[in-house]
């Protein structure tokens, strides 16, 4: 099996894995970071969303071979102590219910706000529609993205 040197959350991980092994399972089973979730395996639910060089990517369909040399960020790399504006907004508005999809939701929201610090509802629809939530936290997610944008503005 090929060996890969991966940069995950600014730490180096050396893993032995088949080239086609999706980053989802590398992150969970080999790197032991379980905040990134398995939901569908075909890029349809967004629970496994990570950042690859800052862009949101569905890690269940992203092979480890493509991750080498790239900067990988998982939910654990956003802020372990919930310091990020998106996390603060999520807590303030009590977004999560079961919480299983929320790592992915937050990863998508963080990426959106980096690109668009003042997102419209239409921007939120576009950026967040790939993240499913069975508990139905949809309207709180929308409000929390707007709230996070406010928090980010105030922190400047």
């Amino acid at each position, binding site marked *: *099996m090929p060996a890969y040197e991966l940069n995950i959350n600014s730490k180096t*991980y*050396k*893993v032995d894995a*088949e080239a086609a*092994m*999706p980053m989802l*399972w590398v992150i*969970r*089973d*080999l*790197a*032991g970071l*379980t*905040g990134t*979730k*398995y*939901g*569908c*395996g*075909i890029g*349809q*639910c967004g*629970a496994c969303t990570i950042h690859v060089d800052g862009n949101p990517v569905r890690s269940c369909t992203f092979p480890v071979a493509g991750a080498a040399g790239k900067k990988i960020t*998982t*939910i*654990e790399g*956003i802020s*372990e*102590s*919930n310091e990020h504006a998106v*996390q603060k907004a*999520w*807590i303030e508005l*009590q*977004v*999560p*219910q*079961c*919480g*299983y*999809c*929320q*790592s992915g939701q937050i990863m998508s929201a963080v990426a959106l706000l980096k690109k668009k610090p003042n997102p419209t509802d239409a921007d*939120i*629809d576009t950026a*967040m*529609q790939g*993240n*499913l*939530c*069975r*508990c*139905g*936290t*949809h*309207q*709180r*997610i*929308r409000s929390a993205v707007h709230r996070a944008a406010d928090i980010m503005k105030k922190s400047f």
Partner: protein
Amino acid sequence: MKDTASTINRRNFIKLTGFTGTGLLLGLSLKGNEGITAIANINHAATAFELTPLIHIDPNGSITIFNKKPEIGQGTYQSIPALIAEELGLSLDQVIIVQTGGEKKFGGGQFVGGSTSIRTQYTVLRKVGASAREMLVKAASQQWNVPVDECYVENAAVHHKPSGKTISYGALAEAASKLEVPKEPKLKDPKDFTILGKSSPRPDVPLKTNGKALFGIDVAVPGMVYAAVEHCPVFGAKLISYDDADAKKVKGVLRVETCERKFGGNIYEGVAVIAENYWAALQGRKALKLKWDYQGNDAFNSKQYEQKLRDLAKTDGVVAHSQGDFDKTFSEAPVKLEAFYETPMVSHSPIEPMNCLASWQEGNKLEIWVSTQVPGGVMSEFSKDYGVAEENLKVNVMFNGGGFGRRLYNDYIHEAVQLTKKIGKPVKVIWTREDDTQLGPFRPMTFSAMKAALSTDGKPLAFQHKVISPTLDNKKYDRTKSDPTMTEGISEQKYEIPNMKNLFVFADLHIPLAAWRAVTSTTLAFSHECFIDEMAVKAKKDPMDFRLAMLTKDSDAKNVLLKLREVSGWDKPLPPGWGRGVAQYEFFAGLAGYVIEVSKKGSGIKIEKVNAVIDLGTVVNPDTVKAQVEGAAVMALTAAIKNGISFENGRAVQTNFHNNPLVKIQEMPEVKVHILTNGGPTIKGVGEPGLPPFAPALCNAIFAATGKRIRKLPFDINKV
């Protein structure tokens, strides 16, 4: 790192010491955002003293509250310990919350389902907390030799008012634990509540925003291996043979073993590929070659079955409820109407797929880590089925990545337990989304034949709701009787109709079926409340007025409708092309109603406004209640307008979220939730009541906007 899988995983190891009684505390420290990330039941520190089985206090001051109600997203991780903490004068950030695992000492009720948690625990757990408070106060008063009345509790300590003396709960723990537990402690006056009745942040939320919350799928133990199980998508098939030669060639695959999924008295065979990591297990599973005998069940398809239900609708079935003389009144009535409604099977589809980690250990011991709604049920079922004494069975209940009724069932746990028993290593079984979508159990479809008679001036005289459906457990169903679950709520509506005869017609089905959030009310409310609307139209009455005219006596249902009328601005005119619909539904779990406004947009419908009213006697956390109703509305919309589950060639056509989609953020309007509460002693459920009345309110609004009556779910909201 050389030995990657085993070295790196170690950071997530659940370091339970199993059965020794000196385990590491794995509860959750709630101080700030730091904390231990697991919820698991524990053999807590031997130094703590037990005041009651649910409250342990350590001399070092740490206070543990055991929670019997697993967190599945509905907020019991906050609302249940809050009942105890309130009476102890504690805030939730002063306690460690530990989920119980079905242990006998914690008593019954270790499950979540039926929107029962607060309803059943509200007084019981306040008494538990109040008893402990009285024990602590008594211990302090004895130590100080002062009257109990001069003492009060605050901030995890007992205080003596006259002298200003203070002693911490920790320092009192040992003495208090030796006192008798008072049977009828004095409960706090609700006006003094600091937590109950107020919107309080949930302590699990910060763990769900940084990836620290551990769900069943996240648990790792040393030596653990992963299993992917191939099942037959045709139910009732028998495994003839399997060829695992290619599967075993996949790098990382360790073994291939058979296992049995047990559900509803049936056994569904599976072949498990066991590997070093889950990806390898999946690759191995793809390489399996299985031969099945479908037992003829590959001929099953939904279209034929639906026709069977329509044919069965012509039979009488059995009486579920009767009052007055329906048959005579209906046959003689001047105005009659009839309609036929259809709903589909649907999947639960929690985003965390079914999974379980099990570890068979020397001495006939078993340890299970699982996201489950039923810790008590897991304990009793697996103790019995595998001959493990309850004291040798440890059930670690993790955060549930969604429940919705799916995790009331233990079918997939059997697979993990059998596999660990066979191979002697801890095995984590993970179902794929395809397994979850295709294998059920599903919410059953119900078809409804409706009849009503009106007087010439539009007064309802007679009403009939005939349900045609399978039952949740066809093996146990007594065919001479109606099935209360499948006729849920239809005879409990408060509408005053003098003559009524509700019927149930049983239709056999070999597919695994299950309770789904709000159970059968999710389909029956649709037919019931849409047909009430049809009656209003036939009577040429406003649908709100028509309903209220059938509610002359005071009732919660009437109050819900009046509140809906007020908050929705029911009597205000709408723009052209808009329509407004109302529905309410009362059933075992509780009572809620909606007014929904829609507009015609191109070839489809846009949902413009949603107002929900939920009726509760007493509320513990208003923000949680709102979240539950918001979520119920989303789930109801998905069930109304997305695919549902259908069968061809004996198999579920839907396999994953691309063809079994959920409502997405851009499809969901804002839901305004209004809580009706009289503060009274009758507490109603929260998790489910928000679901049933949504679809009928929506379809009634669509009728108001377009004149088109929707009688079959799902429907395409973009083509109405």
